[in-house]
């Protein structure tokens, strides 16, 4: 069974933390198509969290097409992305990105500049047909 965690120091609203965790778990293959997410009652007991927060997170995941609610049964992972990334590969990509972001920060780029650069590079890659 999938287990949620909450970081109360992160400043990220709890419902978004749940959404991120499911998204990420699907990306790296910890959650596969057909897996059941914890029932709202189970998540509530696990985390001592407001049930409305869990249902809000599940609604958002449903809206994104990542999960399917089956009334009276539970909420299930709808589909895994075509290519799942192995946890090791995911960690490697993440480390690379962290390194790059630190370099960018050292060079004086703020969040907006980083976002702009990312958008430019993606567009260029798309034009080359590489992305």
């Amino acid at each position, binding site marked *: 069974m999938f287990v949620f965690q909450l970081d109360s120091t992160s*400043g990220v609203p709890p*419902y978004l933390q749940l959404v991120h965790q499911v998204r990420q778990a699907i990306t790296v293959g910890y959650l596969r198509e057909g897996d059941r997410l914890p029932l709202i009652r189970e998540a*509530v007991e696990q985390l001592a969290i407001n049930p409305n927060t869990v249902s809000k997170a599940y609604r958002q995941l449903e809206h994104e097409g990542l999960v399917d609610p089956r009334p009276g049964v539970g909420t299930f992972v709808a589909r895994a992305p075509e290519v799942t990334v192995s946890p090791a590969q995911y960690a490697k990509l993440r480390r690379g990105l962290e390194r790059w972001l630190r370099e960018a920060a050292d060079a004086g780029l703020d969040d907006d500049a980083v976002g702009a650069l990312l958008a430019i590079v993606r567009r260029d890659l798309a034009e080359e047909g590489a992305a």
Partner: protein
Amino acid sequence: MSAAVVTRGLGKRYRSTWALRDCDLVLPAGAVVALVGPNGAGKTTLLQLLAGLQQPSAGSVSLFGLSAPAGSAQALGELGYVAQDHPVYRRFRVSELLHLGRSLNPAWDQDLAERRIDELGIPLRQRTGRLSGGQQAQVALALALAKRPRLLILDEPVASLDPLARREFLQVLMATVADEGLTVLLSSHNVAELERVCDHLVVVAGGRVQLAGDVDSLLDEHRVLTGPGAGVPDGPGVIHVDQADRHAHVVARIGGAEPMPGWSARPIGLEELVLAYLRRAREPRPVTSELELSA
């Protein structure tokens, strides 16, 4: 969503001092509402007015749209109230407390009360004075829930508990919300610990409501703006300004608007948001011109 609690112009005066004033609140049914504010802010006064333990000096309280006033038998039947430090009669056995509850409450659910006490592993024959603080809190909660209330009011329910007992208390509370969909109003001066349990927030300071609303909407509407120290904006949307030599951080309610040119905006955390309102309440700024906050 229907309202569990509506107050209009609610106020309470002790001699010449207003402990609570001009309080207009609408708390939706099914919400878990955190009432936060410093000590002496008027939190307990507000809770006691809602429970009918005190009579208002001004304004009115309505629970679930009932015309019966707070404190009437009909209103009392709708609510469970756990006072600060969850007092229990210390010389009573747990079973005697349940007997008392059953005798005093028409809608009492004895099975529910016994099952809860049993699940907690608390012996019915134990005198409550010999239970741990966490167990006393759980017994007080079980008693309040056995009334089958639609509104549960808890005054500083976890302040005196150790971290583990705190977590266990909130687990039981949230599981009950999941099972029965009751409305919960709990006060605390520790915001961080409430973030995961509340979906609604009421900030009280100096006897007045400073901020009230749905937590996620409030977080969406507020931003921390950072920009040059000169030309710090002013106006009704500015909640708090931290002024440094060459730059300033501003907590502002900007709705969905973009910040002014030259200013960056980042999302705000719940604790930061509450602090900004509490600091504003402590240092009231003169109302000056209403400059536009957003570009």
